[in-house]
């Protein structure tokens, strides 16, 4: 029964919803985490390659790994935002947090359906399920007007992207005569309309994955929305965007993309460079993380060049590494803002004195994001760069490597605040237990992934 994980997630969502109505402040985070964990376990048990509903629902290797990515990111996001969901005294506490949790679980379920769907319609609908509720989550901070404004911008960009996507799907449907993705790939004929559909899809998916020309919403939404959602966006929704891109680039337009290496290289360079350059100037930590995640999208794009299975494996590996590093940073951001309520980078002064463990975890994650060896970020980037190098784009490798040096500059900026600058008032930052556990676990994984080859080989076996 390969739809088991989805069902488990839906059941958990519903139980949280129902229980919240009847029982006074139940520990909903624990239920959610239990549900997600059992979904994760169930997925690992499932045989890859099965199909259901006569082919409407399949579990291909990509789908398998993307589901693991989605469940992992949900699991970690929810556990690091324990403060804003459960701790009433924390400065970033969210009203009606159980509904927040339910919607998040449903979104995860939408993403899982997204990767397993074979027809255009189910793909479109699950994509919408994975996007539209996010607009609602963005507006959760009722007290500040920033949150509503962020939601508005996110809604409009999302609506535009989805209508463009819809138009593209109609053209695909029309020219290939079928709704089924695999049949569509066979009927591809490089006609102008199909190229136009390809571009429209790139725009639609580019929105979700924050590729450069379509990234404008990211900064405002990350800053305005509650941090829990910002971390979720930077990780899960970006992974969903990558998933859709993988579906289209690897399964629907493979030979078109094979000839478009130059095109991809340009977009990747733009995304990386703009993301890094603007991140240099950022003061607010969440806005800073927005641009850092935009630049990460640039590196991921490099994996798509040449449409090889090695490229896909490195993209998947990099996503996993990116999840752990990014969520450690967001965990620290949430821990700091939950006790101090401040989000400026300069507020991290002297963190290494007030809370050495937090600072050390943050430092490791930042180094991993900027691609410094023994840590996993370097390994992920190295495999992505090797894909680009294999296609002969050495200039792109140099640009990417220089970009990661620029990124090192602003990551070191934060480390400088934490380690070198003296803190004027170092009130101690208390971190609640689950957050502490998740952070230390993730930091260990960030370091371990850099050294142990097992995970990469595991992914490789699938392809």
């Amino acid at each position, binding site marked *: 029964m390969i739809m088991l994980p989805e069902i488990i997630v839906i059941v958990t969502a519903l139980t949280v919803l129902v229980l919240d109505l009847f029982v006074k402040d139940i520990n909903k985070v624990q239920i959610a985490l239990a549900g997600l964990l059992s979904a994760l376990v169930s997925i690992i048990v499932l045989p890859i390659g099965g199909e259901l509903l006569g082919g409407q629902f399949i579990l291909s290797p990509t789908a398998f790994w993307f589901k693991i990515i989605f469940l992992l990111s949900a699991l970690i996001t929810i556990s690091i935002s324990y403060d804003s969901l459960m701790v009433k005294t924390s400065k970033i506490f969210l009203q009606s947090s159980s509904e927040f949790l339910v919607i998040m679980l449903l979104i995860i379920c939408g993403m899982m359906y997204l990767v397993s769907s074979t*027809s*255009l*319609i189910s793909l*479109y*609908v699950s994509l*919408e399920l994975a996007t*539209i*509720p996010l*607009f*609602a989550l963005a*507006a959760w901070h*009722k007290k500040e*007007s*920033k949150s*509503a*404004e*962020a*939601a*508005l*911008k996110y*809604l*409009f960009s999302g*609506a*535009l992207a*989805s*209508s463009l996507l*819809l*138009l593209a*799907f*109609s*053209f695909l*449907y*029309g*020219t290939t*005569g*079928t*709704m089924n993705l695999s049949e569509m790939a066979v009927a591809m004929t490089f006609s102008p309309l199909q190229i136009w559909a390809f571009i429209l899809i790139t725009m639609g998916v580019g929105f979700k994955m924050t590729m450069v020309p379509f990234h404008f919403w990211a*900064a*405002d939404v990350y*800053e*305005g929305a509650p941090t829990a959602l910002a971390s979720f966006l930077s990780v899960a929704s970006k992974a969903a965007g990558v998933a859709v891109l993988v579906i289209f680039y690897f399964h629907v337009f493979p030979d078109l993309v094979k000839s478009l290496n130059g095109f991809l290289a340009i977009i990747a360079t733009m995304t990386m460079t703009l993301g890094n350059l603007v991140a240099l100037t950022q*003061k*607010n930590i969440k*806005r800073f993380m927005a641009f850092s995640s935009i630049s990460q999208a640039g590196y991921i794009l490099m994996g798509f060049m040449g449409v090889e299975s090695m490229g896909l494996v490195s993209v998947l590996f990099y996503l996993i590494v990116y999840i752990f590093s990014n969520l450690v940073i967001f965990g620290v951001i949430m821990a700091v803002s939950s006790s101090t309520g401040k989000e400026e980078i300069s507020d991290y002064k002297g963190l290494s004195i007030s809370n050495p463990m937090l600072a050390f975890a943050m430092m490791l994650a930042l180094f991993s994001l900027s691609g410094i060896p023994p840590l996993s970020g370097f390994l992920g980037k190295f495999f992505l760069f090797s894909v680009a190098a294999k296609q002969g784009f050495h200039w792109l490798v140099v640009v990417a490597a220089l970009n990661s040096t620029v990124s090192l500059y602003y990551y070191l900026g934060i480390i400088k605040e934490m380690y070198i600058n003296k803190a004027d008032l170092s009130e101690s930052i208390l971190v609640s237990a689950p957050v502490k556990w998740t952070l230390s676990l993730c930091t260990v994984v960030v370091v371990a992934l850099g050294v142990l080859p097992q995970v990469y080989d595991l992914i490789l076996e699938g392809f």
Partner: protein
Amino acid sequence: MLSIIQEPGLTYWLLLSTVLFSIGLYGFFTRTNAIGILISVELMLNAAAISFVSFNNFAVTGDLDGQIMTMFIIAVAAAEVVIGMAIFIQIFSKQRHLNVTKMNELSR
């Protein structure tokens, strides 16, 4: 070119839906009222629906996927409008206006 207009076939309908789509786009970029922008989105979705149905009618007559897709489009459009309206109401309760151009508190 004239033949397209003479007996309106698939291309005619597609051109029609693209025209409607572009008008929707124009509305999307110029309306200052949030609801106005949402209306233009509805317009665009409707244009897409037309292209789906016309493809179904002219090119892919074997099955009815196009029409089923249109039904789903309508459902999704509904969802979008619901969320949009909820957000607009929240904005309105705070700022008493829905003028999109005045909302750039996040522009630092």
